[in-house]
């Protein structure tokens, strides 16, 4: 009976340790957004952008009227429109950066340090926009609203930098993740071929196909390594913009073409 008690105690202890360690590991992992969360965030972004466009048109009309009429009534109208459009602009950007956070956080192919650094930058942009929103809410005259508008203009470059550095990281990481998957699948397909014990001629043919596919995967890895190095250097200087994104898209295009070729090769290998 004593043995049963000791045995049960050991089992329970192991189970508790296992549960504790698995919880600890899970706690370290960042929360993965669900598909529903992503779709909801996209919908919110579209709505805020539509709202911004409407309010921007209204502001431009009000400003034009004020410039022509130069009355206090028209000034009152344009002040009100200015506040509304500035708040709508901030809401659009907050929604946009939330979407980018949802894109960056689940990235599988990204370097963990780069990913965390980027998430910190996105968080910083969100904090800055929230603070600006509070300032705009308190502003109630022409001078203050023009001042808050100027603050946004000064921050604009920082926001675009965070946005495009996030988008480039997403591009590099998605190619990396697809290439990793291609590599893993290639090894498994070839193992499966070998386990089927084909004739020497077929095996030699498959081996050649496997070697070619492996070379393709290595070439993609090399291209991605170069892209990541360039990205890291650019990140140190915070020099990302729409044109930088276009350059990276072109730069990554050959790696993507190779990836498509790899997909075609692996399907052929498996036949």
């Amino acid at each position: 009976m004593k043995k049963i008690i000791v045995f049960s105690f050991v089992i329970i202890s192991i189970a508790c340790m296992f549960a504790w360690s698995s919880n600890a590991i899970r706690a370290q992992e960042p929360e993965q957004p669900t598909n529903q969360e992503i779709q909801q965030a996209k919908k919110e972004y579209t709505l805020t952008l539509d709202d911004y466009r409407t309010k921007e048109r209204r502001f431009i009309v009000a400003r034009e009227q004020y410039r022509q009429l130069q009355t206090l009534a028209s000034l009152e109208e344009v002040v009100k429109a200015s506040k509304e459009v500035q708040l709508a602009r901030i809401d659009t950007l907050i929604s946009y950066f939330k979407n980018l956070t949802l894109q960056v956080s689940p990235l599988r192919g990204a370097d963990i340090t780069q990913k965390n650094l980027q998430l910190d930058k996105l968080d910083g942009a969100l904090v800055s926009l929230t603070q600006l929103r509070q300032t705009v809410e308190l502003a109630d005259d022409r001078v203050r609203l023009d001042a808050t508008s100027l603050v946004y203009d000064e921050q604009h470059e920082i926001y675009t930098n965070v946005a495009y550095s996030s988008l480039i990281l997403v591009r590099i990481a998605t190619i990396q993740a697809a290439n990793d998957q291609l590599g893993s699948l290639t090894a498994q397909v070839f193992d499966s071929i070998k386990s089927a014990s084909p004739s020497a001629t077929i095996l030699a043919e498959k081996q050649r196909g496997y070697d070619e596919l492996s070379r393709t995967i290595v070439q993609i890895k090399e291209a991605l390594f170069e892209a990541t190095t360039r990205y890291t250097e650019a990140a140190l200087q915070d020099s990302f913009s729409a044109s930088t994104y276009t350059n990276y898209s072109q730069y990554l295009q050959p790696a993507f073409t190779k990836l498509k070729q790899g997909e075609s090769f692996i399907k052929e290998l498996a036949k």
Partner: protein
Amino acid sequence: MNTENQTQFMEDQLLWQEQQPTSVSPVMNNAQELPVKPPMSKVKKIGLIAVAVFGALLLLMIVLMMTMGVGEGGLSLLPAQPSPTPSAQHLGEFDQAFKLLQQDIQAADPSINEFPYPPVSKQLFIVEQ
């Protein structure tokens, strides 16, 4: 004569018994000294069985969790993240993995940018700065 012999034998026997040491064998002695175990109570027995069953169930659960994977909502019979690359014997079974690979490759197209910076204006000043 026979009766005399029998009597003599009995006397010799008694004498011999008197001459023998009175102590019993060590084994017997120990057996006599051991305390008699009281019978285990029913409650204790049931408790011990319950602990043993609980332990066995926990072990089974751990084995299940390790072999079948744990889903987001608890124990699941399917892996939480199904492997896109099943170790199949037949190549046809890679079809699902190929579909997933195709989806990942399509998502990796660098020419697609579904989230450019929002087209918001700068210089929204009431009076020209």
